[in-house]
Protein backbone atom coordinates (compact mmCIF):
# COMPACT_ATOMS: atom_id res chain seq x y z
CA UNK A 1 0.00 0.00 0.00
CA UNK A 2 2.64 2.50 1.08
CA UNK A 3 4.93 1.47 -1.81
CA UNK A 4 2.37 2.71 -4.28
CA UNK A 5 2.76 6.22 -2.93
CA UNK A 6 6.57 6.10 -3.05
CA UNK A 7 6.86 7.97 -6.40
CA UNK A 8 4.71 10.79 -5.00
CA UNK A 9 6.97 11.14 -1.98
CA UNK A 10 10.04 11.06 -4.24
CA UNK A 11 8.46 13.78 -6.39
CA UNK A 12 7.62 15.87 -3.33
CA UNK A 13 11.18 15.47 -2.05
CA UNK A 14 12.69 16.50 -5.38
CA UNK A 15 10.37 19.51 -5.59
CA UNK A 16 11.26 20.58 -2.05
CA UNK A 17 15.02 20.21 -2.55
CA UNK A 18 14.88 21.90 -5.97
CA UNK A 19 12.96 24.87 -4.59
CA UNK A 20 15.52 25.38 -1.81
CA UNK A 21 18.49 24.92 -4.17
CA UNK A 22 17.11 27.38 -6.76
CA UNK A 23 16.24 30.01 -4.15
CA UNK A 24 19.69 29.70 -2.56
CA UNK A 25 21.47 29.78 -5.94
CA UNK A 26 19.72 32.94 -7.07
CA UNK A 27 20.52 34.53 -3.71
CA UNK A 28 24.23 33.61 -4.06
CA UNK A 29 24.65 34.34 -7.77
CA UNK A 30 22.43 37.39 -8.06
CA UNK A 31 23.04 40.82 -6.60
CA UNK A 32 21.01 41.77 -3.54
CA UNK A 33 20.68 45.50 -3.01
CA UNK A 34 17.76 46.28 -0.74
CA UNK A 35 16.69 49.86 -0.29
CA UNK A 36 13.68 51.75 0.96
CA UNK A 37 11.93 52.00 -2.38
CA UNK A 38 12.53 48.37 -3.24
CA UNK A 39 11.18 47.05 0.05
CA UNK A 40 8.07 49.20 -0.15
CA UNK A 41 4.75 47.44 -0.87
CA UNK A 42 3.94 47.42 -4.57
CA UNK A 43 1.01 49.73 -5.30
CA UNK A 44 1.59 50.25 -9.03
CA UNK A 45 4.18 52.89 -8.24
CA UNK A 46 1.85 54.96 -6.06
CA UNK A 47 2.29 55.64 -2.35
CA UNK A 48 0.89 52.73 -0.31
CA UNK A 49 -2.30 53.77 1.48
CA UNK A 50 -3.52 52.12 4.68
CA UNK A 51 -2.98 48.54 5.77
CA UNK A 52 -2.89 45.48 3.54
CA UNK A 53 -5.30 43.72 5.92
CA UNK A 54 -7.93 46.39 5.64
CA UNK A 55 -11.63 45.86 6.33
CA UNK A 56 -13.90 45.78 3.33
CA UNK A 57 -17.60 45.53 2.69
CA UNK A 58 -19.53 42.43 3.76
CA UNK A 59 -21.30 42.59 0.38
CA UNK A 60 -18.27 40.92 -1.24
CA UNK A 61 -18.79 37.87 0.96
CA UNK A 62 -22.40 37.48 -0.15
CA UNK A 63 -21.49 37.85 -3.81
CA UNK A 64 -18.79 35.20 -3.36
CA UNK A 65 -21.35 32.86 -1.75
CA UNK A 66 -23.72 33.32 -4.66
CA UNK A 67 -20.94 32.70 -7.11
CA UNK A 68 -20.12 29.38 -5.44
CA UNK A 69 -23.78 28.33 -5.48
CA UNK A 70 -24.17 29.01 -9.19
CA UNK A 71 -20.76 27.56 -9.91
CA UNK A 72 -21.89 24.27 -8.35
CA UNK A 73 -25.17 24.48 -10.22
CA UNK A 74 -23.30 24.65 -13.52
CA UNK A 75 -21.06 21.77 -12.43
CA UNK A 76 -24.15 19.62 -11.92
CA UNK A 77 -25.94 20.91 -15.01
CA UNK A 78 -23.18 20.33 -17.54
CA UNK A 79 -22.90 16.50 -17.32
CA UNK A 80 -26.67 16.25 -17.36
CA UNK A 81 -27.06 18.67 -20.27
CA UNK A 82 -24.62 16.68 -22.42
CA UNK A 83 -26.72 13.48 -22.12
CA UNK A 84 -30.13 14.89 -21.26
CA UNK A 85 -31.89 13.31 -24.28
CA UNK A 86 -30.85 9.84 -23.10
CA UNK A 87 -32.34 10.32 -19.64
CA UNK A 88 -36.05 10.32 -19.07
CA UNK A 89 -38.48 12.94 -17.92
CA UNK A 90 -37.81 11.92 -14.31
CA UNK A 91 -34.26 13.25 -14.46
CA UNK A 92 -35.49 16.36 -16.24
CA UNK A 93 -38.00 17.06 -13.48
CA UNK A 94 -35.33 16.45 -10.84
CA UNK A 95 -33.09 19.04 -12.47
CA UNK A 96 -35.99 21.50 -12.73
CA UNK A 97 -36.63 21.07 -8.99
CA UNK A 98 -32.90 21.52 -8.30
CA UNK A 99 -32.83 24.76 -10.28
CA UNK A 100 -36.08 25.91 -8.67
CA UNK A 101 -34.64 25.45 -5.16
CA UNK A 102 -31.61 27.52 -6.13
CA UNK A 103 -33.88 30.12 -7.72
CA UNK A 104 -35.85 30.42 -4.48
CA UNK A 105 -32.53 30.91 -2.70
CA UNK A 106 -31.55 33.60 -5.19
CA UNK A 107 -34.84 35.45 -4.68
CA UNK A 108 -34.33 35.21 -0.90
CA UNK A 109 -30.82 36.66 -1.06
CA UNK A 110 -31.94 39.39 -3.46
CA UNK A 111 -34.70 40.31 -1.02
CA UNK A 112 -32.00 40.40 1.68
CA UNK A 113 -30.14 42.90 -0.48
CA UNK A 114 -27.12 40.92 -1.70
CA UNK A 115 -26.72 42.90 -4.88
CA UNK A 116 -27.86 46.10 -3.27
CA UNK A 117 -24.63 48.04 -3.51
CA UNK A 118 -26.10 51.17 -2.05
CA UNK A 119 -24.15 51.32 1.18
CA UNK A 120 -26.73 53.51 2.89
CA UNK A 121 -29.00 50.50 3.39
CA UNK A 122 -26.40 48.54 5.33
CA UNK A 123 -26.45 48.87 9.09
CA UNK A 124 -22.66 48.77 9.33
CA UNK A 125 -20.70 50.64 6.72
CA UNK A 126 -17.11 49.43 6.37
CA UNK A 127 -16.20 52.18 3.95
CA UNK A 128 -16.67 54.78 6.67
CA UNK A 129 -14.02 54.85 9.34
Amino acid at each position, binding site marked *: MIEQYLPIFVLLGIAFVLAIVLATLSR*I*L*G*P*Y*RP*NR*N*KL*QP*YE*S*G*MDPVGQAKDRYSIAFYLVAMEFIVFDLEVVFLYPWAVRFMDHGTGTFLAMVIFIAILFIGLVYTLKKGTLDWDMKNLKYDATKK
Partner: protein
Amino acid sequence: MGLESALGNGFLTTKMDTLVNWARSNAAWPMPMGLACCAIEMMAFAGPRYDAARFGSEVMRFSPRQADVMIVAGWCTYKMSHAIRRIWDQMPDPKWCIAMGACASTGGMHRCYGVVQGVDNFLPVDAYISGCPPRPDAVLHALMKIQDKIKTEHSVMLDS
Protein backbone atom coordinates in the same frame (compact mmCIF):
# COMPACT_ATOMS: atom_id res chain seq x y z
CA MET B 1 42.33 22.36 -21.36
CA GLY B 2 43.46 19.59 -19.10
CA LEU B 3 40.09 19.20 -17.44
CA GLU B 4 38.28 18.25 -20.63
CA SER B 5 40.71 15.44 -21.42
CA ALA B 6 40.32 14.13 -17.86
CA LEU B 7 36.52 14.12 -18.03
CA GLY B 8 36.25 12.53 -21.45
CA ASN B 9 33.30 12.71 -23.81
CA GLY B 10 29.88 13.90 -22.68
CA PHE B 11 31.15 16.79 -20.58
CA LEU B 12 31.32 20.49 -21.31
CA THR B 13 33.45 22.94 -19.39
CA THR B 14 32.48 26.57 -19.18
CA LYS B 15 32.81 29.65 -17.03
CA MET B 16 30.39 30.46 -14.23
CA ASP B 17 29.73 33.88 -15.77
CA THR B 18 28.87 32.32 -19.12
CA LEU B 19 26.50 29.84 -17.52
CA VAL B 20 24.73 32.44 -15.41
CA ASN B 21 24.51 34.87 -18.35
CA TRP B 22 23.13 32.12 -20.56
CA ALA B 23 20.44 31.40 -17.99
CA ARG B 24 19.65 35.08 -17.45
CA SER B 25 19.52 36.03 -21.11
CA ASN B 26 17.10 33.23 -21.95
CA ALA B 27 14.68 34.08 -19.16
CA ALA B 28 14.39 37.86 -19.36
CA TRP B 29 10.86 38.37 -18.09
CA PRO B 30 9.41 41.70 -19.19
CA MET B 31 7.66 44.20 -16.97
CA PRO B 32 5.16 45.71 -19.44
CA MET B 33 5.02 49.44 -18.75
CA GLY B 34 2.31 50.04 -21.33
CA LEU B 35 1.59 53.76 -21.41
CA ALA B 36 0.15 54.32 -24.88
CA CYS B 37 -0.41 52.77 -28.30
CA CYS B 38 3.02 51.07 -28.28
CA ALA B 39 1.56 48.75 -25.64
CA ILE B 40 -0.70 47.23 -28.31
CA GLU B 41 2.36 46.33 -30.35
CA MET B 42 3.96 44.99 -27.18
CA MET B 43 0.98 42.63 -26.78
CA ALA B 44 1.54 41.43 -30.35
CA PHE B 45 5.19 40.88 -29.42
CA ALA B 46 4.10 38.48 -26.69
CA GLY B 47 1.40 36.89 -28.82
CA PRO B 48 1.69 33.72 -30.94
CA ARG B 49 2.58 35.40 -34.26
CA TYR B 50 5.77 37.08 -33.09
CA ASP B 51 6.13 34.74 -30.14
CA ALA B 52 8.46 36.19 -27.53
CA ALA B 53 8.44 32.72 -25.97
CA ARG B 54 11.18 31.78 -28.45
CA PHE B 55 13.45 34.09 -26.46
CA GLY B 56 12.16 33.10 -23.05
CA SER B 57 10.34 36.39 -22.58
CA GLU B 58 6.74 35.31 -22.87
CA VAL B 59 6.03 35.75 -19.17
CA MET B 60 4.78 39.31 -18.79
CA ARG B 61 5.12 40.00 -15.10
CA PHE B 62 2.74 42.60 -13.72
CA SER B 63 4.66 42.70 -10.47
CA PRO B 64 8.10 44.30 -10.56
CA ARG B 65 9.35 41.72 -8.07
CA GLN B 66 9.44 39.04 -10.73
CA ALA B 67 10.54 41.10 -13.72
CA ASP B 68 13.95 41.55 -15.39
CA VAL B 69 13.31 43.83 -18.36
CA MET B 70 11.12 46.90 -18.18
CA ILE B 71 9.59 47.78 -21.53
CA VAL B 72 8.49 51.42 -21.40
CA ALA B 73 5.95 51.54 -24.22
CA GLY B 74 4.52 54.94 -24.89
CA TRP B 75 4.83 58.57 -23.95
CA CYS B 76 5.51 59.33 -20.31
CA THR B 77 4.22 62.39 -18.51
CA TYR B 78 6.09 64.01 -15.65
CA LYS B 79 3.33 62.87 -13.32
CA MET B 80 3.70 59.24 -14.43
CA SER B 81 7.50 59.36 -14.35
CA HIS B 82 7.54 59.16 -10.53
CA ALA B 83 5.46 55.97 -10.59
CA ILE B 84 7.64 54.45 -13.32
CA ARG B 85 10.80 55.30 -11.44
CA ARG B 86 9.44 53.67 -8.28
CA ILE B 87 8.41 50.53 -10.16
CA TRP B 88 11.88 50.46 -11.69
CA ASP B 89 13.38 50.79 -8.20
CA GLN B 90 11.21 47.92 -7.02
CA MET B 91 12.48 45.54 -9.69
CA PRO B 92 15.19 43.26 -8.26
CA ASP B 93 18.72 43.46 -9.64
CA PRO B 94 19.92 42.69 -12.28
CA LYS B 95 17.49 44.59 -14.50
CA TRP B 96 17.38 46.07 -17.96
CA CYS B 97 15.24 48.65 -19.68
CA ILE B 98 13.86 49.05 -23.20
CA ALA B 99 12.54 52.42 -24.36
CA MET B 100 9.98 51.40 -26.96
CA GLY B 101 9.00 53.84 -29.66
CA ALA B 102 9.78 57.44 -30.47
CA CYS B 103 7.88 58.86 -27.49
CA ALA B 104 9.61 56.75 -24.84
CA SER B 105 13.00 57.34 -26.47
CA THR B 106 12.82 61.09 -27.13
CA GLY B 107 9.35 62.38 -26.32
CA GLY B 108 8.45 61.93 -29.98
CA MET B 109 5.73 64.17 -31.31
CA HIS B 110 4.73 65.18 -27.78
CA ARG B 111 6.96 68.23 -27.70
CA CYS B 112 5.14 69.85 -24.80
CA TYR B 113 5.50 70.84 -21.17
CA GLY B 114 3.81 67.76 -19.69
CA VAL B 115 5.75 64.98 -21.40
CA VAL B 116 9.23 63.77 -20.41
CA GLN B 117 11.46 64.13 -23.45
CA GLY B 118 12.73 60.55 -23.32
CA VAL B 119 12.54 58.16 -20.39
CA ASP B 120 16.35 58.12 -20.22
CA ASN B 121 15.94 61.32 -18.22
CA PHE B 122 15.15 59.16 -15.21
CA LEU B 123 15.80 55.53 -16.24
CA PRO B 124 19.01 53.80 -17.35
CA VAL B 125 17.80 52.68 -20.78
CA ASP B 126 19.68 49.78 -22.41
CA ALA B 127 17.92 49.59 -25.76
CA TYR B 128 16.00 52.17 -27.76
CA ILE B 129 13.47 51.22 -30.43
CA SER B 130 12.63 53.62 -33.22
CA GLY B 131 9.20 53.76 -34.82
CA CYS B 132 5.78 55.17 -34.12
CA PRO B 133 4.72 52.59 -33.06
CA PRO B 134 7.51 50.08 -33.71
CA ARG B 135 6.64 46.74 -35.24
CA PRO B 136 6.74 43.75 -32.84
CA ASP B 137 9.81 42.38 -34.61
CA ALA B 138 11.62 45.59 -33.64
CA VAL B 139 10.81 44.76 -30.01
CA LEU B 140 12.20 41.28 -30.58
CA HIS B 141 15.33 42.89 -32.00
CA ALA B 142 15.70 45.06 -28.91
CA LEU B 143 15.23 41.99 -26.75
CA MET B 144 17.99 40.20 -28.68
CA LYS B 145 20.23 43.24 -28.17
CA ILE B 146 19.55 43.01 -24.44
CA GLN B 147 20.38 39.31 -24.55
CA ASP B 148 23.68 40.12 -26.28
CA LYS B 149 24.37 42.71 -23.61
CA ILE B 150 23.63 40.24 -20.80
CA LYS B 151 26.06 37.75 -22.35
CA THR B 152 28.92 40.27 -22.11
CA GLU B 153 28.40 41.04 -18.42
CA HIS B 154 30.69 39.84 -15.64
CA SER B 155 27.68 38.85 -13.61
CA VAL B 156 29.15 36.62 -10.90
CA MET B 157 32.67 37.95 -10.57
CA LEU B 158 31.86 41.64 -10.37
CA ASP B 159 28.14 41.88 -9.69
CA SER B 160 26.76 39.57 -7.04
